[in-house]
């Protein structure tokens, strides 16, 4: 009987799995910063999309997700620099998205939400690399707000580093992501 109760609870818990989508109307922000000597380049976009299937098992948060950024929308503030970035380095016509697909492997409750650890495959410039990315998730009125900071080594993704004037890019770029998810309709 004890087993039965547990199983029923288990089913109940699992069935609460819910799909959330990135709220594209929210103030989402994806920002990369390249801090090379003499030149700091900051590129931003709001064009992040994706989903997370959230599950709460035995009170533990878990889930799988896919988030992606439309790279052609990255704006560094100078039109020609954007074009060079798109055409010569990120090659966005061939590889339009940066995708991170994986699952939440740890979720630690904090005062205002969760500190989560994720593991997945980061797909950028046609190269897939396994990565572990930490983030913070806080509850909002409608869903959740997620934020994360991580680093990307350009060489890992076979992205050539421009060396000539104006476009001086560091070996590692800092990425900051902040976005909102709401229940899928």
């Amino acid at each position, binding site marked *: *009987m*004890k*087993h*039965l109760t*547990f*199983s*029923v609870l*288990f*089913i109940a818990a*699992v*069935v609460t*799995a819910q*799909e959330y*989508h990135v709220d594209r109307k929210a103030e989402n922000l994806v920002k990369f910063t390249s801090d090379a000597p003499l030149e700091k380049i900051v590129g931003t976009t709001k*064009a992040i*999309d*994706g*989903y997370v*299937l959230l*599950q709460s098992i035995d009170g533990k948060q878990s889930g799988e997700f*896919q988030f*992606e950024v*439309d*790279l*052609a*929308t990255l704006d560094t*503030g*100078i*039109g*020609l*620099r*954007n*074009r*060079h970035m*798109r*055409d*010569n380095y990120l090659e*966005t016509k061939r590889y*339009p*998205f940066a995708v991170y697909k994986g699952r939440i492997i740890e979720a630690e409750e904090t005062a205002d939400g969760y500190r989560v650890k994720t593991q997945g495959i980061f797909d950028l410039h046609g190269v897939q690399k396994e990565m572990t990315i930490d983030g913070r998730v806080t509850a909002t009125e409608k869903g959740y707000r997620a934020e994360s900071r991580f680093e990307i080594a350009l060489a890992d993704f076979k992205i050539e580093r*421009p060396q*000539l*004037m*104006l*476009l001086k890019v560091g070996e590692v770029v800092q990425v900051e992501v902040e976005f909102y998810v709401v229940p*899928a309709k």
Partner: protein
Amino acid sequence: MGKRIIAIAVVLSCTVWAQTPSWQRRAPETGPLELFHALHVSMLPTAETLQQGDLEFEVSHRFIPTIDSGADAFYGFDGPANIRLALDYAVTDRLLITVGRTNVQDNLELQIKYKALQFRHDRFPVLVSLRGGSAYNSEIFAPVKSSVRRWQFYGQLIANTLVGEKLGIGVVPSYLYNSHIFCCDPQYSFTFGSYVQYYASPHWSVFAEWNPTVSGWRKTYDSFSLGLELETGGHFFKIILTNNDKLNSSLFLAGADRDFWAGDMRFGFMITRLIKL
């Protein structure tokens, strides 16, 4: 009994785990249609504009002695030279305003370029821009009939395509009013310019430009240019061989004074730098 339920529960939970998301990827943004890399080929404009708020500074020279002046005059580089300084500013992504000044007749010009139409096509994408300008010749060496004749006006239609992302082709029909400011009656010049530019690598390209006068007044020859372009981030460096030593559009469109095919060519250069305020 309990075990069976657990098994069912596991099966059920697995189904839930395998739940496929309803989310679907949206088509990526196409971005603006951009064909030629720079705002000019040699002296004729491309259909490109800049991103709103961008500034571009230009300095150009045309060395007046021809290259056949030999080593003594360092193939023309000893000068003297005609000089142009200009500043482009993008009011919007499609509207570019340019102020240019050249030391030839102290010609000061104001131009507006508007990116009017874009046709996306896999093989022949097309950009069409309109460009209009006025120029004032403030220091002239001979009397003009009236001070109004110091003004020149011109309009250009620019159509560009880029084949295989490497070969840029453009035509630029141009109309210039008052092409000879010293002539008794106001003259006009209608030219049908064209150019090709081949982008050999992300940094290097070569170009050729031809601006024949179709009707109206022309100096002695049609203008030809050949050149090499180096693109490095926000800079464009162009080395040009041309028979036309003028650099502001109202002076250039009137024609050239030397015969390109007889080898009467001059060296020139153009350097532009993008500035973000």
